[in-house]
């Protein structure tokens, strides 16, 4: 009974919820805030599209090997175009799509004397779900060889063609999601932790501490970011193992981006520190730690969550640009930026346009997180 009185809405006989006491929602604890946000968020079409896509992306990144039809590290025919897929084969129409492997032909191009590649129409390969393929370890532990889709002859199936070493672009894109998204998530965690701590302390304590911290933030703001990424990435020794290389890139990205978030958090904290309930808490002798953690942080968290959703796509983009210039990730690892590296060469791009397809992965990610962020921004203030 008492829980019902406290809740901001009650259920009526016909199953709808009626908002009986909007103000009480503020005092009803964290759970109902989330319910309120969700109720508002549910109605934003863009937000829901974003949420679905982000969930899918994270699932794909986690179980990339399961979704990948071919071994991302196995070299086959270089720069092969995507395998054609059709519903019509020699035997007439069938509902099961057939694909034809691209093979090196006997004929030579009369101008370049390169072997002419083309689809092998003699051997249609039916595309099936849940087929055995190359062996991998699910989540890095469970040995498995089952794949979501592919051809049942166990040979590679190139949905988006192959790159310059003949590796499957589609599978590489799926595996690359791990590094690209993982790098963004880790960097964003650093940014959030440092930005929030600095912003909260600077905004709450104020005075000389605040003045000094803000000068440091000013300097970080004046640093030209893009060129600094390049030079910092060049500082990393060429001989460093790829994991160390990646870790340094994460630290560099985090180091150059915390200032923005800290300034936003500081602005919010400055405003909150003057509000009556904070003053009241100070008056009854609550410690600074308690005021920051119990009274200020909960009010800033929603803002931080929204900025996280907008930071992730930005870091994915930074990674892809650095990768494009050859600075972000080293070969044994796969990332979207690294896959774009060959696109800088116009003649390669003109002859083999399918190497541009990692752009699609990046665009999808950026779109998904931005749509999610947009929906959340409208929903975080449901009162």
């Amino acid at each position, binding site marked *: 009974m008492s829980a019902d009185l406290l809740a901001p809405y009650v259920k009526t006989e016909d199953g709808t919820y009626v908002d009986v006491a909007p103000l009480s929602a503020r005092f009803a604890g964290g759970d109902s805030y989330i319910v309120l946000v969700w109720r508002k968020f549910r109605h934003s079409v*863009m937000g829901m599209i974003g949420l679905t896509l982000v969930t899918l992306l994270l699932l794909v990144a986690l179980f990339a090997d399961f979704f990948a039809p071919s071994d991302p590290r196995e070299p086959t025919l270089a720069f092969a175009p995507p395998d054609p897929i059709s519903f019509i084969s020699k035997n007439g129409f069938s509902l099961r799509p057939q694909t034809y492997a691209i093979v090196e032909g006997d004929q030579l191009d009369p101008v370049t004397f390169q072997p002419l590649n083309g689809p092998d129409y003699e051997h249609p390969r039916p595309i099936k779900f849940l087929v055995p393929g190359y062996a991998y370890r699910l989540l890095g532990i469970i040995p498995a060889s089952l794949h979501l889709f592919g051809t049942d002859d166990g040979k590679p199936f190139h949905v988006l063609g192959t790159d310059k070493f003949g590796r499957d672009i589609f599978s590489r894109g799926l595996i690359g999601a791990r590094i690209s998204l993982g790098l963004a998530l880790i960097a964003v965690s650093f940014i959030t932790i440092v930005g929030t701590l600095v912003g909260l302390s600077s905004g709450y304590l104020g005075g000389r501490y605040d003045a000094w911290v803000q000068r440091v933030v000013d300097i970080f703001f004046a640093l*030209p*970011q893009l*060129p600094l990424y390049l030079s910092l990435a060049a500082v990393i*020794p060429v001989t460093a193992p790829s994991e160390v290389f990646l870790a340094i890139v994460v630290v560099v990205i985090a180091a150059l981006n915390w200032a923005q978030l800290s300034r936003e958090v500081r602005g919010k904290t400055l405003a909150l520190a003057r509000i009556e309930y904070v003053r009241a808490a100070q008056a009854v002798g609550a410690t600074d730690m308690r005021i920051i953690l119990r009274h200020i942080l909960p009010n800033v968290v929603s803002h931080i969550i929204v900025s996280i959703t907008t930071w992730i796509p930005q870091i994915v983009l930074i990674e892809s640009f650095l990768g494009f210039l050859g600075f972000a990730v080293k070969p044994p690892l796969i990332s979207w930026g690294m896959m774009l590296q060959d696109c800088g060469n*116009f003649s390669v*791009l003109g002859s083999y346009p399918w190497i541009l397809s990692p752009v699609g992965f990046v665009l999808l990610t950026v779109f998904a997180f*931005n749509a999610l962020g947009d929906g959340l921004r409208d929903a975080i203030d449901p009162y």
Partner: protein
Amino acid sequence: MLRYLAYRILAAIPVLFVMTLITFAIIHSTPGDYADYVAQQLRVQGHATNEAALAAAQQFRIDHGLNDPLIIQYFRWMKDVLTGNFGTSYFFNRPISEVLAQRLPPSLGLVITVHVLGTIIGVSLGIIAAARQYSWIDTLISFVGFLGITTPKFLFALVLIYILAFKVGVQELGSFYSSYWSYQPMSFGKLWNLILHVWPIILVGVLNGISYNMRMMRGNLLDTLNAQYVETARAKGLSYGATVLKHAVPNALHPLAAYQSAVMRYMIEGEIETSVIFGIPTIGVAIVLSMGIGDVLVTATLMLILGLVQIVGGIVSDLLLAWLDPRVRLGE
């Protein structure tokens, strides 16, 4: 006002000083220097023996003081900065001020063109969208704006280059002028040739600029349109169009001015990204090039200039805010 301006400029000096120290240290911590590049060129192009190439590199280091402690190199460069010629570029083999004079105007020209176009078109679209909220035109503009904001400049540039070069067959890529016009005096023909070359770069930047300004303007204007004075203006019989343009828009411009400082940084980085992709000789390409071969003073100078432009952008934004908003102006 003047006191405030003077304060802002004075406060910028230590920030710039520390910034140059940091960037200088970072640039110099990269392995290898320009002497290594000299040695490599001698080996590859001059067919020098390894010993001769290394000896020449050593001589180059002594001649240009590359063996001196970092702090001495820094103050030597600082002295050059204060005298206004920023030192000598090893690669271009002339004062960096000349390199700047050649590269900075086109860069700034591009950035400013993109910024002005993006602001004017974006703000107008934002006003249209907000004034007709929930109509099909608002939905359309908002959707295009969302696409524009999510489309990364450098990927858009990459795809645009592919389409222009290989599908449409555009020849005017990778430079400012065709070779015929390069050494002609300025004329309408040359201007048209310039436009033919730079419109894809401007398009990439403007699409993003429009989207940012549009979304910001739409949001602000929707907030102001809910204010009571707007309702009062309507109640006393002012037409809807006049109410929006005379009462709501001036009040909605305020956050837009505050955001100009962020724009500057955003525009410059966008310019670097797009020029690198399009291969246009501007600041962006010069930074990437000089960094690759260890022409450190050029890199350091360009970073100093970019930092300076950002700080100036911040000050201009604050002045604009004061000019637009009497509350800020008189509150001081």
